[in-house]
């Protein structure tokens, strides 16, 4: 692969990194002098082992994995903070030099001084900062606190300031570590809006996070790290599913039926869940107005099972949007009693998706028809993103119709108490 290939933003070949973790604290000269024989008393931690991947310019890529899998180490090597032990990293484009918000902020300096200092770390020139200063302060809603010291700010104010400064960086490649971990829901919404903007602008973003939903919603592609090894590289939906499965398998091994996402008596189990679009493509991002089908394989594991049904919930941002329960819906999937070992497929179709752009997840459950006993329940069995080509704000497409009729005299009238207020009298009589 040629270095001049403009379409590659990041190229990583054979990257390895190990840490030497001292077994005892030896950061004094005395220790070095008195223990010079045992100078090599440390444990070697293979943080990253032979990592290979490429990121095309404009890609939005997520790095996931459990704690200690090496994802932050990888990000730090990509941003030149750590130096690799072996391998080659080629970066094509200007990299944002920060990993977290508010890097370089000093509590003893004022908001103004911090903007100039932290801005310099982000690569913004003085004249440029001068020009966009009001914009930064305005976006952070801190006009009255420009010359107050940062230590007197609330943490919310500080995060707002850091964020409105960070989004001014010009980098073509952005490395972000758990940006979403800070701030409240409205702040996270702001982050997502910025992600959308970056996407539109064709910037390359590498996002390290524990939030699988953020990865499925914003990244086309994800890397899964496990003990320093790259174990999966592919579409975000598949990789996050694999990661969830690996977590689920771990739970299975220990014979724990009820882990966080999956529980039930397992009299009937789901053998698989998938979502297809109208062309039968799996793991799709369906358009508003398109159709989707959820398919669920089952296997009966207990002869005593009588009739059972399937329930589907659609969630958006953790909130319930649709519940396809047995009641009051008259139509539902009813599977008659059958013997142990019999299998089949249940299908759930939405012919016309009313949702506007957003990320959704599907929870499914197999339950007894009469007692409602949970046989097998799985949260977030599927995650998908609805794409609205029109880019309309809001939640659903109503199919509403507008119309206007003219009339000679005003029609309808307010009840007295709701009548339009009289023009306000001047003065304070």
């Amino acid at each position, binding site marked *: 692969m040629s*270095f*001049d290939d403009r379409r590659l933003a990041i190229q990583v*070949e*054979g990257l*390895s990194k190990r*840490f030497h973790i001292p077994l005892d604290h030896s*950061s*004094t*000269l*005395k220790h*070095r002098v008195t223990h010079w024989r045992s100078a090599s008393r440390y444990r070697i931690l293979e943080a990253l082992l*032979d990592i290979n991947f490429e990121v095309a310019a404009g890609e939005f890529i997520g790095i996931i994995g459990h704690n200690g899998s090496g994802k932050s180490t990888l990000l*730090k*090597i990509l*941003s*030149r*903070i*750590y*130096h*690799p*032990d*072996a*391998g*080659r*990293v*080629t*970066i*094509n*484009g*200007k*990299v944002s*030099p*920060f*990993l*977290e918000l508010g*890097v*370089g902020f*000093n509590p*003893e*300096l004022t908001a103004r*001084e911090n903007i*100039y*200092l932290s801005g*310099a*770390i982000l*690569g913004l*020139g*003085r004249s440029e900062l001068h020009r966009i200063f009001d914009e930064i302060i305005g976006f952070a809603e801190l006009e009255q606190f420009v010359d107050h010291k940062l230590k007197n700010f609330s943490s919310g104010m500080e995060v707002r300031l850091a964020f409105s400064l960070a989004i001014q960086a010009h980098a073509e490649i952005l490395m972000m570590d758990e940006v979403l971990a800070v701030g409240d829901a409205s702040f996270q919404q702001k982050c997502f809006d910025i992600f959308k903007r970056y996407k539109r602008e064709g910037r390359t973003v590498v996002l390290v996070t524990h939030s699988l939903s953020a990865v499925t919603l914003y990244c086309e592609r994800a890397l899964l790290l496990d003990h320093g090894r790259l174990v999966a590289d592919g579409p975000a939906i598949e990789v996050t599913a694999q990661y969830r499965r690996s977590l689920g398998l771990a739970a299975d091994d220990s014979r724990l039926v009820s882990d966080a996402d999956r529980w039930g008596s397992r009299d009937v189990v789901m053998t698989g869940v998938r979502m297809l679009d109208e062309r039968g493509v799996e793991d799709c991002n369906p358009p508003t107005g398109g159709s989707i089908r959820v398919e669920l394989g089952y296997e009966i594991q207990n002869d005593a099972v009588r009739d059972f049904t399937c329930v589907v919930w659609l969630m958006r941002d953790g909130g319930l949007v649709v519940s396809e329960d047995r009641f009051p819906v008259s139509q539902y999937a009813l599977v008659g009693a059958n013997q142990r070992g019999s299998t089949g497929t249940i299908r759930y179709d939405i012919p016309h998706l009313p949702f506007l752009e957003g990320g959704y997840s599907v929870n499914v459950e197999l339950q007894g028809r009469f007692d409602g006993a949970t046989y097998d329940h799985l949260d977030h069995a599927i995650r998908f993103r609805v794409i609205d080509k029109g880019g309309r704000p809001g939640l659903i497409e109503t199919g509403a119709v507008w119309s206007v009729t003219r009339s000679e005299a005003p029609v309808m009238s307010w009840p007295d108490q709701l009548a339009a207020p009289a023009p306000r009298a001047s003065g304070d009589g």
Partner: protein
Amino acid sequence: MSAPADVRLPGSPAGSAAQLDSFRHYRHLTLELAISQFKLRYTQSVLGYLWSLLKPAMLFGITYFIFVDLFKINDGTQFYGMQVLLGIVMWTFFAECTASSMQAIAGSAGLIRKAYFPRSILVIAASLSSLFTFLINMLIVFAIAVALRQIDVGLRMLIVIPLLLELYMLTLGLSLFLASLHVQFHDVGHLWDVLMQLLFYGSGVMFSLTYVLQRLHMALGVGQTAHLQPHLAWIVELMCANPITQNIEDLRHALLAQQAPWTELVVTGHLAAVKQYAAVDAPWLLPVPFLVVVLVFTIGALTFRARARNFAESL
């Protein structure tokens, strides 16, 4: 088995503009860091910046009282008070700059672990913020000296510029060396405190070299032209090789020895005393302090470069 580690960044063929860009960025970052450190140094103090003037002034007051009023010491040179004042201002810069720059890396752990930029920027910024203070102090001392008619304003004052550059280069080289070691071994800080005490007396801050020689002669009871005992000659030679002695002596000589001919102004200040007494006839000592400066700077810069890539992990 594994290829050598390599990190490549935008730069090479079409990247000269980008390199210039990042140079500008880093220069800007250095200045911003220096400015904020300068501000932070005097934060939460009533007198603020005045302390940077008061500290050397107080040190001067104490020294002058003890040496001149109490012990009636005067090395016979003209304007002894001004000699000591110049020495103290220069020494204060050297001491404060190395002490604060040494902490520059270890004290910015958060920044180093979270953002990339050449690590030397932190040390350079710390040293620049000490340099601001030093230059302002120097201007004030100049003003006092001119007011007291101890310095003639003239072209020969320009000699101060290369001398200050030399002092800065020495200080920065040492700072880089100390800062890179301090990341792993905090002992360096304590060791340096002690070494500074030694250096303070070994650099002729309170007295000129002439005075040291005078005292040695008096103690030994030998004539002024006689050669020193070998082991004492060794001490004098060591003092002459010390770049701080050389720097202070040369600066005093350039500013205060108004009768000295031009030819003696440039680098001979530190040997003038030695030659005058013919105690140590060692012209080879002349370039040694400059070589020491170059050596210290090179070692400091190389040590720093070799260790810088591991700072983020070690902190």
